[in-house]
């Protein structure tokens, strides 16, 4: 439910905060919804949630950094996740990850400057039979070798061209 329009996103966030305002334990659901709207949790958004719910911004930040589900950095249009679960790991997911870092010139958790790709390492996604696995948004790519990486990235670059 990601949207492009800044004002619209702000309006949606205000609505979410308003709905949850007086509920006990509202912080986590609101953070979830906010991440759904913005794709990640920018600082200004955490500040707004803090003001809206009356929770200190330090606590909002504490909760957001506790759960790996929440992201504090911007995500790309294409969100790449490299599975680091046991099966993928023994099948060489570390090499796949390194190759992606090299090709995109970013570190894990970062986003390319043009906003196209972001790179994350994740826990087992349950596709061990296809190890090593990466996902790009909802697409799954399995039984990969380092050599496959350039083709995958090229495919998405071509879609953007």
């Amino acid at each position, binding site marked *: 439910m990601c949207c492009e329009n800044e004002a619209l996103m702000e309006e949606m966030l205000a609505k979410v905060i308003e709905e949850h305002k007086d509920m006990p334990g509202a912080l986590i659901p609101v953070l979830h919804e906010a991440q759904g709207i913005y794709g990640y949790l920018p*600082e200004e958004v*955490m*500040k707004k949630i*803090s003001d809206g719910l009356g*929770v*200190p*911004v*330090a*606590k*909002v*930040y*504490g909760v957001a*950094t*506790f759960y790996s589900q929440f992201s504090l950095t911007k995500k790309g249009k294409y969100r790449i996740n490299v599975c680091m679960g046991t099966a993928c790991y023994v099948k060489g997911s570390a090499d796949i990850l390194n190759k992606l870092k090299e090709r995109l010139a970013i570190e894990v958790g970062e986003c390319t400057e043009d906003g196209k790709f972001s790179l994350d390492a994740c826990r087992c996604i349950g596709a061990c039979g296809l190890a090593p696995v990466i996902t790009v948004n909802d697409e799954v790519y399995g039984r990969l070798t380092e050599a496959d990486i350039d083709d995958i990235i090229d495919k998405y670059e071509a879609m953007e061209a």
Partner: protein
Amino acid sequence: MGKVHVTIDGIQVYVPDDYTILEAAKEINIHIPTLCFLKDVSEIGCCRMCLVQIKGKKGLEAACVHPVYDGMEVRTHSPEIIKVRKKNMELILSNHPAICQSCTRSDSHCELQALANMLDVHFSNYKKYQETVNQNAAVDMDDGISIQRDPNRCVLCRRCISICNNIQTVGAISAINRGFNTIIGTAGNRGLDDTVCVSCGQCINVCPTGALQEHRDIDSVWDALYDEDKYVVVQTAPAVRAALGEEFGNPIGTDVTGKMVTALRMLGFDKVFDTNTGADLTIMEEGTELIDRIRGGGVLPLITSCSPGWVKFCEHNFPEMIPNLSTCKSPHEMLGAIIKSYYAEKNGIDPDKIVVVSVMPCTAKKFESQRPELAVDGRADVDFVVTTRELARMIKSIGIDFNAIADGKFDDPLGQSTGAGLIFGTTGGVMEAALRTVADIINGVSSDSIDYMEVRGLEDGIKVAEVKIADLNIRAAVAHGLGNARKLMERVKAGEHFDFIEIMACPGGCINGGGQPLQVSDVRNWVDFKEKRAKALYKGDREKFIRKSHNNPAIKKLYKEYLGMAGGMKAHKLLHTHYVNRKDD
């Protein structure tokens, strides 16, 4: 409330049924070790140092949070308990930097060190691991204007989080990240100075290790003292004298005014003045402001502005109440301004050569002294602020035998003060001092009513009193601790009428300021140290010949020779200030 029979290590004890095992054991002088526990502040049982065995229960339980029940049988030591406690300590020490020799806490205030010794843990089996952890996890130190944080020395007991969030309701710090990467930090990992932190320093007072301490200003003070060209003047806040003695082994509540003055002279200060004199001056200005506002239909309630932690809290959380804040500078800032103007002129000293050092029970005073608005003609009223603890360190560092030196007296004229100025150091003191003076001004005669008992005391967080002076009914309120200040402000906003409000940021007032000598949890849990310190101030007040600010001869002379009227033009230039809306900071 009922009572129950509990057996601890074979000894029967009959205790109230809302006791914890820890409290019941204390009754029979059994000391169960604790690290994270701090009574009324943080009771979460996370450090697992107080583990005990309850008969019939599997595993061990945390004594600090486990309630007693009738017929309970507890063992506080056994080979298993000792082994587990020691192992926990070893694990805590495994990523604790071994820099005790240069840590300010190691001078008998490090609870971690004391506990490691008590548990007889003198090495860690995780030494090798320790080296890697320290390399990997070393986190940046944050050295702010008032408070210095070193997350590497933190044991994650969370006392600071609790006092900041639950007691003070400031909410500047929280647990950030998780697992091995957990640190106690701020939103966005900013420095404390860039957050809603008000520098009250209560987090320092409850920290069991050296992870939190004041920003060090000792070196700047030494530089000034050894600079032949500078005229270095020191002033000491009322609460300092009621606590400084603790640093030299005196019982809590020992008044060491005389020895403190002598020690300051021995340190090399050219003049030793008293912030109490500044407090008397504050009462003249603030009392006048109160009468003007009541008589002239000004903004009420008038709220005191002596406590810089409260002032910043108000700026962040209640900017709409800024017009209610007294425009008076705080006592040490007033005295600083007078030293650099009146005193300098009178004695033919170039004000640019004067260095004013304030010894304060407070960490927020460090921040306050750097506010750009607290300066006259581009000259800061106060140059450096050191805490009571820092003063003790300075005294120790040049080998002064504090308990053996003779008593000294403050220098004239800015060392003359009254009992009213002295009680500024505890909750209700500013209110009482103001009422003593306001009553006399309004009545036009000196009244006998000196003790306003209804505004004294530490028991209630918010004290309300109705005081009738001539035709005026003054509705007064006193709050100490910022959580109570918040509650009181909500009441004001809801429409409850008050004329005059005193707020001190720290629970108990300045006697328990963030710069005061540390008392470890073993003392704080069982002894009311705040009351003992407050008593020293009230005793001093009783023994003073002059107990009302407006009767202070030095203050009378100051107005006659220099300032003119209280609240007049000159007084406004030197003694009043303004505030900043920090809502969006």
